[in-house]
């Protein structure tokens, strides 16, 4: 059933492309219908998959001569991420309700992107996974370059090239693994059991892991993320931060770590205190957490604050993966979901609710606007989203980051200490942004007050409320009752760990 998420999205994209461009409303409702259908399918698949392990959805020989199958399957991790994609997709459509230019093309690219993302999460054939992974690159470029803002062509090209370089590294690794294994199959399970030599895994693992981690925003390959997020239109930055970065993390886990588990083994010697690739990537993850948070603290553009906070939060995901224990990796997967929802919410508030009305994202300008009074909905929405982002109990981020930190303590205590330093900084930058953008007590001058009365900010529309409600509920429900996702994630992580990771 879950396979229909992919087909529906691509069919929707095709329909949108064929739609006459003079009917933006039809395009909107169609996009919403397709996204909701995907979400409903995702929820149904999630519910049906509760308590089940890996289930094969579709298995058809695709390219017999190379043993490539059109193999879709789902385990607990895939189901959670499909669910996340469904939520983010619906919210993205709701927050792009005000797109007036080339609406049908926007949603065509958007749905093609969503279809590719669903495909990645459900592919269990590495070739197929790569195909979907690449399908997701091109729509991103056009979404940003056509409908974006601030330096959009630069941001779009940078994003496309970073993604493509990352996927080139992945492709090299996949080709090498396929020819080295000689297994005449590209199924993830067959390749994982092919008994690839340890020396091969040792160099192939970092290649593939880094290739995917570029898209997960791993420091120092994260620089596409802030510029890309800022340049992107609201829905695209929601999907970019919410789902695309998870593609990278998911690839790290599903391909990098599951196919080359021995790549994480100790080297047998120590360089600068690092004794394995695991140490290297954990260090990079921690640097990402701290660096992203500190840079976010110094930004003057509201959206850049959120952009760098994404780099910081994704660091937790990568750190969780490197703990290689049950609780840490559970936390990593849960953090993928959690950050996907929260980042989507933050970008929606900044990009759609605030920027589309004020036409500025500079914190210095926003300070003068009294947004707490003029846009109370935005202010309170940001308070809630900010609390979730800081990792307050009751929201999904708390459970996720706590688990990652516990897992890290079990692996190497100093990882936890270093990473935990990021949390007060996260509170600081969220607080700073909140205060400057909404609750500044700076007195307005006479001219400013006149300007304020001269044009009122447009009222909040129903799609914004609906989108906010959806994302808020998604983080709150999981925060209050994390078992709902963890009961799916845990068995899947356990079987991955048993498989050698």
């Amino acid at each position: 059933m879950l396979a229909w998420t992919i087909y529906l999205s691509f069919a929707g994209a095709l329909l949108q492309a064929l739609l006459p461009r003079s009917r933006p409303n039809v395009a909107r409702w169609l996009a919403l219908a397709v996204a909701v259908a995907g979400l409903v399918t995702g929820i149904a698949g999630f519910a049906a998959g509760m308590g089940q392990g890996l289930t094969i959805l579709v298995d058809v020989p695709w390219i017999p001569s190379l043993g490539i199958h059109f193999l879709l399957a789902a385990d607990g991790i895939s189901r959670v991420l499909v669910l996340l994609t469904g939520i983010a997709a619906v919210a993205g459509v709701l927050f792009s309700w005000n797109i007036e230019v080339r609406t049908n093309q926007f949603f065509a690219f958007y749905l093609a992107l969503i279809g590719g993302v669903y495909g990645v999460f459900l592919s269990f054939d590495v070739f197929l996974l790569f195909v979907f992974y690449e399908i997701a690159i091109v729509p991103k470029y056009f979404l940003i370059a056509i409908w974006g803002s601030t330096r959009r062509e630069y941001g779009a090209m940078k994003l496309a090239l970073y993604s493509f370089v990352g996927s080139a590294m992945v492709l090299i690794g996949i080709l090498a693994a396929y020819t080295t294994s000689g297994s005449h199959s590209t199924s993830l399970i067959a390749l994982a059991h092919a008994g690839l030599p340890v020396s091969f895994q040792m160099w192939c693992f970092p290649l593939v892991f880094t290739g995917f981690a570029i898209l997960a925003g791993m420091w120092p390959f994260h620089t596409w993320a802030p510029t890309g997020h800022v340049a992107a239109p609201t829905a695209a930055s929601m999907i970019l931060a919410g789902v695309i970065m998870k593609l990278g993390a998911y690839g790290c886990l599903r391909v990098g770590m599951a196919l080359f588990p021995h790549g994480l083994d100790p080297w047998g010697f120590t360089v600068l205190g690092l004794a394995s690739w695991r140490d290297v990537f954990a260090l990079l993850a921690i640097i990402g957490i701290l660096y992203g948070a500190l840079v976010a603290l110094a930004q003057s553009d509201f959206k850049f604050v959120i952009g760098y906070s994404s780099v910081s939060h994704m660091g937790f995901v990568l750190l969780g993966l490197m703990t290689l224990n049950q609780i840490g990796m559970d936390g990593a997967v849960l953090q993928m979901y959690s950050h996907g929802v929260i980042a989507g919410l933050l970008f929606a508030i900044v990009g759609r609710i605030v920027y589309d009305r004020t036409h500025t994202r500079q914190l210095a300008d926003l300070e003068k606007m009294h947004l707490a009074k003029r846009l109370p909905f935005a202010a309170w929405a940001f308070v809630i989203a900010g609390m979730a982002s800081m990792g307050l109990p009751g929201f999904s981020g708390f459970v996720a980051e706590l688990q990652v930190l516990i897992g890290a303590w079990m692996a190497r205590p100093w990882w936890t200490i270093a990473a935990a330093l990021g949390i007060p900084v996260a509170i600081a930058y969220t607080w700073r942004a909140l205060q400057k953008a909404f609750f500044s007590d700076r007195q307005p001058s006479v001219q400013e007050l006149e300007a304020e009365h001269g044009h009122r900010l447009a009222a909040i529309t129903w799609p914004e409320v609906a989108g906010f409600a959806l994302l808020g509920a998604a983080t709150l429900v999981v925060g209050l009752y994390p078992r709902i996702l963890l009961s799916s994630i845990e068995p899947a992580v356990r079987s991955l760990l048993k498989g050698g990771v």
Partner: protein
Amino acid sequence: MNYTDLFRATLPETVLEIAALLVLVVDLGFLRKAALETRVAVAALLGAAGCVVGLWAVAFAGAGGLSFGGEVLLAGGGSAGVAQCGILVLTALALLLLIGSDFTSHAGEFAAVALMAAAGGMIIAAAQDLLVIFVGLELLSLSLYILTAFAKKSGKSAEASMKYYLFGGMSAAFLLFGFSYLYGISGSTWLPRVVCGVNNAAAHGGAPLLAVALVMIAAGLGFKVAAVPFHFWAPDTYEGAPAPAAAFIASVSKVASFALLISISSVALHFMESFHVSGDGTAAFSAQPPQITSGFGAGWPLIVAVLAVASMVFGNLAALVQSSVRRLVAYSAIAHAGYILLGLAFFSWTNRSAEAVLYYVLTYGLTTIGAFGVVGVVERVTGSDKMDAFLGLNKRNPLLAGVMLVLFLSLAGIPPLVGFWAKFNLFAAVLEAAGGVVPFALVALAVAFSAVSLYYYLQVLKRVYVMPGVDESPLRVPPFALIVLLVIAAAVVLLGCFPALLQGWIASFY
């Protein structure tokens, strides 16, 4: 050999020549007073029909080939069969794109010369003898010089043709010089015997002479496939030639030349067997263990690998700075030639590599014809092939923009389009054929440079989709050309989604 055999084996070429004559007779005899539009359409359709009949003739001629005194002159089946069918289909498409163009008033002659070039291409795709190869190459090359110069009113076209001719003549001289050394070393012009003789001579102190011969031959053939450093003609020719001629050069001529390189590489690997299976001729591709590396020794793969690396590095980097779409396609063609040469440098004992190279070059030819079709249409309206001529194409003609999107992304190797699969298949074949660090490093380089290539393809697509247009009036495309382009784009998508279709078809020839 008797005349029946000769006639049967060369039936496809004969059909093309007859079609060429027929086109001339109809155009110059019956349609002298007709409007140019009609004459172009009739010539193109007749030519395409000739290609279709040629396809039937290829099937009819079968896998027998043509032997003389136990030596196979023209191979049948295998890579020759695939390449011949490919040449015919691509020629037909290039001719169909001629419809609606007005660069020449000699429509019949254009179609006729194109058909003759195709016949030359079919000969070299099948040739197994140095002299036959040379005859075929000259027939192809001379026809291409003429096609390039066909836009008589355009100075660029004449200049391009002149450059092409001078470089071509020079490289033909090199090739012939190399062939003469080979003949001197081995005492034969038949490829398997040449390789065998060369192999013996190399073991007895003839290696320096062989090296000279191989370098000369690489220069000659490197020119045909536009490999660096023999590529100088390509950008000028692609830019100056009339669009259908450029499409023809970029596709048909490439397919034929790579088919020739495949047969040379195969013979070099399989020369020992050829003498055991002289019955039906072609080297039988048995699954023997690869105890022999190459009949030419290590020199030939080394030369090809050097050309491959130079081409993909230089082609991709030079394409980055182009402002003319035609020149961009030309440099990207050089880069693609580099990828393909990589497949030829690490050639496998089984037909794996041959099939992968054929797959690549056929689908590449198809995509490039489409790309030149779009460029030709845009050029006819805007009068320029600069990137800025494509500004706002999405608004001016969404269908044409869609075709362009599909074709250029396929060239960049984005799935699910056919270009991605072709690359994956080719690189997998390279790694399967040869283990070790060097082939792996070269494949990694190739993959890295295809990431570079995305940049310049996106530069064009950016103008089509993203940047605002200067002139936003609708751009009229002749309906027939649009249909052909849509069919090509659909084929690129379809073959990419179901790669096994074409792969199975190619495998059926072996």
